[in-house]
């Protein structure tokens, strides 16, 4: 353990080197500061770490360093200030905004290294498209020009059957497609997380009931059910989100349950119970942070699969005609003669966008997953 000794009184005062002299002064100052700090709280004995020097023992001094080295940073701080590192800080670490990510980096060794950069870039691009379509799109999606126009300078991807600019439609469609994906993934992750946590933590009859229910949902054929629901209910994006979200949480629930079962037996959950924390507190502060790395990739994959389901349902004509997503564009291209006229600029871009977006999301999702070599560093079992 840290053994600190203040030895400034015993330090010989004459140094042949000017630098060494300066260093001795700084050292002395630091020792005085530290003592002042230690005396700040009277009544608490400082348990034996300011050690008495045994006759033959060599001095232990944390402040010792090579003569040429620059001053250790912690000594310059005011006594009460909190510091995480003794080592000298680089300029990045001196700026508070950078500190947290850097601590993270030091803890996990890398920051973006596990992510696929192409995936991140693509996802960012599509997110920008979805968030600011008016910034990119040359026209409003409702504006009408000559129908069935081939690509030209004024309309990069031509126009469709009613004369809307296809490029603008593409940009505005990103928002709807991605909204369906993320919203239904949010719903399914929330449900899956709750059910998995509850059944994994409480076990017993709660587990059997919830897992039985999960099994029932698991065997429901998704797409046919959604088609039937879509046919009966008024086709709308919101209903689609709800149905997709409510029908895709089972695999997440199973994974979360398995992980929870494992973590609930770990030492820290046991000691949390020993300290009298409520189950809810344990689940939210001890278990969830330790399964985030399982949930996040699952969330991304759920987003991707919801986007694909949305596209296929829209293509089948069960989408919301008032909100044109990429799938809807494909459906229109198919039913309004885009394929027959071989207007590739109509049906290719939305298809390509769906593919690339799903791929980007999946790639980013894989980035969250622990790599095979990282298992020792895994947060669950250190």
């Amino acid at each position: 353990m840290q053994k600190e000794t203040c030895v400034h009184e015993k330090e010989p005062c004459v140094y042949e080197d000017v630098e060494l002299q300066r260093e001795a002064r700084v050292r002395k100052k630091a020792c005085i500061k530290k003592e002042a700090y230690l005396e700040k709280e009277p009544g608490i004995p400082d348990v034996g770490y300011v050690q008495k020097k045994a006759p033959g023992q060599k001095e232990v001094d944390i402040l010792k360093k090579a003569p040429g080295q620059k001053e250790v940073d912690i000594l310059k701080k005011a006594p009460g200030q909190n510091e995480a590192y003794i080592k000298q800080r680089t300029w990045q670490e001196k700026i508070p905004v950078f500190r947290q990510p850097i601590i993270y980096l030091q803890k996990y060794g890398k920051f973006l290294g596990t992510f696929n950069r192409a995936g991140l870039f693509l996802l960012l691009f599509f997110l920008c498209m979805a968030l600011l379509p008016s910034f990119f799109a040359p026209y409003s999606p409702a504006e009408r020009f000559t129908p069935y126009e081939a690509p030209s300078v004024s309309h990069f991807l031509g126009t469709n059957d009613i004369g809307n600019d296809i490029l603008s439609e593409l940009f505005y469609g990103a928002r709807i497609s991605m909204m369906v994906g993320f919203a239904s993934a949010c719903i399914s992750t929330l449900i899956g997380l709750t059910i998995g946590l509850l059944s994994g933590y409480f076990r017993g009859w709660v587990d059997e009931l919830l897992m039985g229910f999960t099994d029932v949902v698991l065997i429901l054929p998704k797409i046919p059910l959604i088609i039937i629901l879509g046919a009966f209910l008024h086709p709308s994006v919101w209903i689609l989100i709800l149905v997709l979200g409510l029908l895709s949480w089972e695999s997440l629930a199973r994974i979360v349950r398995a992980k929870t079962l494992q973590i609930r037996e770990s030492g820290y959950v046991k000691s949390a119970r020993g300290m009298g924390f409520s189950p809810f507190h344990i689940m939210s502060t001890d278990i969830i942070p330790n399964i985030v790395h399982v949930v996040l990739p699952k969330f991304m994959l759920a987003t991707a699969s919801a986007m694909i389901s949305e596209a296929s349902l829209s293509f089948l004509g069960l989408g919301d005609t008032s909100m044109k997503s990429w799938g809807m564009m494909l459906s229109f291209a198919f039913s309004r003669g885009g394929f027959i006229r071989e207007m590739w600029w109509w049906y290719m871009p939305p298809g390509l966008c769906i593919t690339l977006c799903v791929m980007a999301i999946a790639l980013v999702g894989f980035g969250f997953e622990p790599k095979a070599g990282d298992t020792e560093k895994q947060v669950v079992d250190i």
Partner: protein
Amino acid sequence: MKPLLEIEKLRVSFEGERPVNVLSGVSFSIQKGETLALVGESGCGKSVIAHAVMRLLPSEARVKGSVRFKGTELLELDEKRMSALRGNELAIIFQNPSHALNPVYSIGRQLAEPLRVHQKQGKPDPSQKVLKALKQVGFSRPEHYMKYYPSWCSGGMNQRFLIATSTILGPELLIADEPSKGLDPDRIKEVERELRAHPGAGKTALLLISHDLGFVRRLADKIAVMYSGEIVELAEAADFFEQPLHPYSLGLLGSLPENGFVPIPGSAPALSDPPSGCRFHPRCPYGEKRCLQEHPRLKDTKGRFVRCFLCP
């Protein structure tokens, strides 16, 4: 004086294909501020007692008997009131300190957690208390260690963090489950000092579970020796180390390096199939015919309790 913790005829069995009786009628009591050490080989049920007192046993366990803490029957309390007691008045330090701290939070946060949960006081900043507690367990720069994560620290440091976490609320009974396990002698001495010097020391009773007799000798007031799920000897620490009465206690002390390093022959019986008569008879050097058939009772001889026919 009324004891702080009173355990009477505690029986624990684990259900399974064949139920296993882990504890068969254990009784002892701890006074306020007293240190009682449970010693014995691995698998004789020491930790089960700790878990039974904290009510942390898995659901397969069947617990009978009575555990009274300040007159309240713990085994009959509902989970909510039990939770309020845990951490506040009863605290436990588990084996393996590095696993008992959550790897995703900093030490400071984990130390403040019991304060936040049990005292519900948001206003007085818990960090002052945390700093104080860390200082008490021997960290001379607590504000520096508060930002550490458990994975950055050694086992000995984590052990001390755990002691600080468990004692930050000043519990009346602290259960330490093998606090010296896996530490080298220097660290053991540190842990020993921390167990003596933590915030509530003096008024906190300690139930110490260990198989390190040297460690126990320096800390305990009373010693209970366990063998195969029952107490075989219960005595004041000084008397015990001066003159152990039960043959098993003799064997334990004899197997210490300073006493000649003579191991007890054989190995501990499986709890699923304990031998007939005295449970120690297959390994006992003084065994008689009677030991094979009858199960001895815990006899009171001059303030000491011994489970052996041969003792007067």
